């Protein structure tokens, strides 16, 4: 049984094909890293999986825990356990962070036939997670991501992830804009969620994040396809030789 099964996925924006026949299979508990040069389609893959409207899937299938993922609305995907940590978390002035998180938390509970959680126990739950992420609880009183620094926004993403306990978490360039300390705290948060059942798809440009979040598999995405897969050592090789190395190799192979 796989958590996520992507088969020959073709997708694009306004007629421009970005993903060109992508295949990927993730089993429970696995951590997969997707690396690749700018413009390879890394963020497009994250967005297609989360259900962003602008992306049109033209071919292929994606099954998520047995469901046809592409038939589900973004909120249904979240209810079924998919989570996307945004590369650029969105600022929402006027919407209280704590209120937002409780709405999200309870929407998922209700979709799964559970009673919504009251404000007080929920607040205790979130505050404890804040402590684990070394995040000032004052952020909960502010508007969602409004005026947060880059690192604070990413911490807020991981806080939501820890709260919603997804079965598959996609981390889209979560390391970008982070200093070393923040990187360590966030990685600790992610690693704490690794329980042998929960799966991760870590999308990153640099190998650095993979020092902290050890992947089981590394895939290289180039021009909308996975051109190479391997274990963690592939990431190190890439770091050393650069993405150009792949191009030259694939040209030689071709």
């Amino acid at each position, binding site marked *: 049984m796989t958590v996520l099964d992507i088969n020959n996925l073709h997708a694009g924006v306004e007629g421009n094909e970005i993903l060109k026949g992508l295949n990927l299979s993730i089993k429970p508990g696995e951590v997969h890293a997707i690396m690749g040069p700018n413009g390879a389609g890394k963020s497009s893959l994250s967005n297609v999986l*989360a*259900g*962003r*409207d602008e992306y049109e899937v033209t071919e292929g299938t994606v099954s998520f825990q047995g469901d046809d993922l592409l038939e589900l*609305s*973004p*909120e249904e*995907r*979240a*209810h079924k356990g998919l989570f*996307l940590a*945004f590369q650029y*978390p*969105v600022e*929402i*002035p*006027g*919407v209280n962070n704590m209120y*937002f998180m409780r*709405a*999200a938390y309870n*929407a*998922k509970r209700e*979709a799964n036939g559970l009673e919504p959680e009251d404000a007080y126990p929920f607040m205790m739950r979130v505050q404890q997670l804040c402590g684990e992420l070394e995040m000032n609880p004052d952020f909960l009183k502010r*508007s*969602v991501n409004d005026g947060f620094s880059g690192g604070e926004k990413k911490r807020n993403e991981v806080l*939501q992830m820890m709260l*919603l306990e997804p079965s598959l978490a996609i981390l889209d360039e979560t390391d970008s804009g982070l200093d070393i300390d923040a990187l360590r705290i966030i990685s600790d948060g992610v690693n704490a969620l690794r329980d042998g059942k929960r799966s991760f798809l870590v999308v990153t440009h640099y190998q650095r994040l993979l020092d902290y979040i050890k992947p089981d598999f590394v895939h290289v995405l180039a021009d909308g396809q996975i051109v190479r897969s391997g274990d963690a050592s592939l990431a190190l090789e890439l770091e050393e030789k650069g993405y150009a190395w792949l191009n030259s190799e694939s040209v030689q192979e071709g």
Partner: protein
Amino acid sequence: MSVTSLMPDVGALSNQAFVSDALTAWQKEARDSVKAMVFPSRKDEAWRYVPHRQLPALSAYQASAPKEALACDLDVYCLELVDGICVAKPDLQGLTITNMQEASDDMLPAFTSAIKEDDAWIRLNQAYLTHGVLIELDAQCELDKPLMIRERVTKDATDQWLQGRFVIEVGENAKLDIIYHLMSEDTSFALNGVTKMTLAKHARCSYLRIQDLSSKATCLHQTDISQDTSTDVRVGQFLFGGAITRDAVHVALEGEHARVDLSGVYFPKSSQYMNIYTHMTHAVPKTYANQMYRGILCDQGQGVFYGRVHVLKDAQKTEAYQRNANLILGDKARVNTKPELEIYADDVVCSHGATVGQLDEDQLFYLRSRGIPEKQAHALLLDGFARSSTDCWEDSPAHDLLLAGVAAASHTEE
């Protein structure tokens, strides 16, 4: 449009008689003069965007049988009027509430003090007044809770024009919080209202208008506020429902260090029309005004924000700010926003900004990706958008009413 064209049968417009001869004379003067007057029209800048032709014709007012007062679950003192008849009145030390019909001659100056933007509508109100209340708070006096004026209109007033007037006088160094809540049953009627508020030196006052009307109602209202030295005022205009609404506020800052903060939300849906008109007159040096208005326009709803700031020549060191932001949600929705600054002093700080936009798709997707259903995400964003105005009233017992108004409008939005 002449006044008589809107009044097919002026003689039939009845009203309650005054005890005071002086008030009777004051009214007669208006009855004589109003017939020759012309209503403001599209040619008058301040009334330019009003759908004049859709205003209902005037008809007779007939006092209906007195109703029971509603229970009030907010922590306020409640003054309640139903179809223009006072049904509940608090009895508090330092606060005097007088029905205009029972007023004595010596109250004449308060009732008849001039309204700054005197026009045919104001004169019509004077001529055919259906209800009037004088509220006076003694100097140095402070109420421990807000005074809520709840004005209800029932089906008994169907197709009638009500002409209401509130006169509020706040004594020196006194503090008064007023919540004016206008609500109606599902029926067509019109209300032409005037509120005159005068603050003596060092007085503080908040005045929150909430309109919660049937979609067949028409409401034209002008508030006229005069502020003396070191007075502090907060004004709110929150419009929900009603077919045609024009809610005008004129603030005259006539004493140094007078300050006023204004905020509001208009949320027209289906084919509703809502117009907020503000007019600040900075008459003396060192006065301050800040305006924060938000519009949400759905379906074929139409909104107007017209903000006039007038800084007189001697009014140096004036600070005047104005912000108006709008969200257009319907393909056929429309908004006209117009700042109008007229500044004759040369040492002032004034700013204004108006924006018109749509709901942010990235924000909507972000919320949905966290599992929040689309409708709820929508409502959450509208609530968030309105917060810069609604949160100006966070300390008011009516804050929840404002949030509920935005939420109710959001949830029924198509």
